[in-house]
């Protein structure tokens, strides 16, 4: 068996006595896609927060590439190779599209090494590549503020890709996208799995189906069930959780 790239072990995060994550466990293999689903408040985003160091677990640990990163500062975790796309587009509006990507792509992020003006050829070619990938070559010199909502989403996905992190965390990457755009996004994510491990959160079952990846279902801060989308759908426990919310897991 291959060793896990990321393992979340027994992690509990509590806010004022409420356990947003309750002895949560998750393992991710290198170069694989995993989809995280669950009702609102199941703790999906909190799990990403705990992985990236935004919230510190009260119990348990997060191990990345064999190293315990539970107590490491956020920006240092990112430098180790985890990059996250947030639910709300978090692009940098006063910078150009190309500058947004370059900021994400830069290798040397320490302050004292930031006084160079020129980007290395490696970084520039990566920025070019990502511009092509997200279809924003024409917009490279426009300010990110002037993009449409869908383009902003794409740009942020592009930033995560440009970071070249081994593990990408995508929180609702297709939110607010049209059907075509979300299909393209799913294709992009599948193609990325040749280089990266990707953990995707999403509600949209059509999108999840297109990702064609193992699914982990969370409920009340715990892992409820893991398996293929079909197995999850036919699981009586899952059905019980979604009782009265049949719309969220429609049968194809």
């Amino acid at each position, binding site marked *: 068996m291959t060793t896990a790239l990321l393992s979340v072990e027994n992690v509990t995060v509590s806010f004022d006595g409420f356990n947003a994550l309750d002895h949560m466990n998750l393992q991710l293999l290198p170069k694989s896609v995993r989809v995280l689903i669950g009702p609102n408040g199941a703790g999906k985003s909190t799990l990403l927060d705990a992985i*990236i160091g*935004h919230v510190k677990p009260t119990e348990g640990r997060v191990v990345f590439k064999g190293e315990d990163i539970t107590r490491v*500062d*956020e*920006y*240092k975790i*990112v*430098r180790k190779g985890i*990059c*996250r796309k*947030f639910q709300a587009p*978090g*692009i*940098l*509006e*006063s*910078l150009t599209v190309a*500058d947004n990507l*370059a*900021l*994400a792509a*830069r290798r040397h*992020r*320490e*302050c004292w090494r*930031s*006084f*160079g*003006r020129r980007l290395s050829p490696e970084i520039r070619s990566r920025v070019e590549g990502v511009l092509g990938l997200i279809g924003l070559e024409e917009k490279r010199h426009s300010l990110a503020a002037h993009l449409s909502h869908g383009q902003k989403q794409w740009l942020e996905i592009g*930033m995560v890709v440009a*970071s070249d992190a081994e593990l990408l965390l995508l929180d609702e990457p297709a939110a607010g996208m049209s059907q075509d755009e979300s299909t393209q996004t799913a294709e992009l994510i599948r193609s990325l799995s040749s280089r990266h491990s990707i953990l995707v959160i999403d509600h949209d079952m059509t999108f999840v189906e297109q990702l064609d990846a193992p699914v982990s279902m969370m409920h009340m801060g715990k892992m409820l069930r893991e398996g293929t989308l079909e197995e999850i759908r036919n699981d009586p426990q899952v059905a019980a959780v979604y009782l009265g919310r049949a719309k969220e897991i429609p049968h194809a």
Partner: protein
Amino acid sequence: MKKWIKIACDAALLVVLALAPYYLSSYHLSLLGRFLAMAILSLGISITWGKAGILSLGQGVFWGLGAYVLAMHLKLAALAPGDMPDFMMWSGLDHLPVWWNIFHHPAVALAGVVLVPTVTASAMAWLVFNRRVSGVYFALLTQALALVFSTLLISEQAYTGGFNGLTDFNTILGHDITDPGFQRAIYWITLLALAIAFVICRWVLSTGFGKVLVAVRDGESRVRFLGYSTAAYKTVAFALAGALAGVSGALYILHAGVISPAMVGVVPSIEMVIAVAVGGRSSLTGVVVGTLLVNFGKDAISSAIPELWQFVVGALFILVVTALPKGLVSLPSVFLRMKSMLFKLSTVNSLDGPST
């Protein structure tokens, strides 16, 4: 193309300022020298507030540290060997404190002018930014610092000259400060310092560091989640602003001949920010022009009707924030927009046919 126009404007401004000793009276030259010194501080505010979005209402502290360090040197230089400043003797001190004496050496004083404010600013910024204090809380904290600093200066009269501050400077590096020829030299030194500071700031903003600063203003947590230690970047920016403030303060007292707690407290610190806002906080040229205009305005108004200035500065601030948030430098583009609007309006009218 547009970049060249900007550089040409900056260069023209520099030439006009460099020739000032030939067309200004010595009184006005001394005023202009002071305001050019203030403009160095404004460049620092432009970087921290204009670019990185860090509003400090306590720049007077770092400005004051630079000013006091040089003033201590000037005070000592004016004394016969073994003498003490008069206010120390009145307060009953029997010997010069060590931290006064070290600034007797001009090189130490010069280094101190830059280092004391820089170190103070970095220490404060590092402590505060690492605790994720920002925005309005940071502004309040710096304001409190300005209050503490001026209060401390007043209360420690034996060491600082108290309310009256330090004055009666007459010699620096063996030159007579009051000599008109030397005043002219100080003016050019100030202008040169401003030009160098301007170029440094422009360069800093053009680097990756500058991009990260702008990004921090847009979304600090996003930048952190791209692997940047935003606290480190903000601290370096704040330290740079501190250094510029220190140099600004030191040059200022060479023109003004006095430094006192009233010049470094809360109100002057706020006025420094207002001058930057009026000029246009994110444009380096804008903040220089804004600083000159606001300070000359202050001088003209206060010498005519002293009570009026506070009202004018308040009104000016409200006016700029509401009507011209990008400051005076945005006037040309606002004007162009209005012109195009008027033009459109007139074409619409012409569709209705002539009104006659």
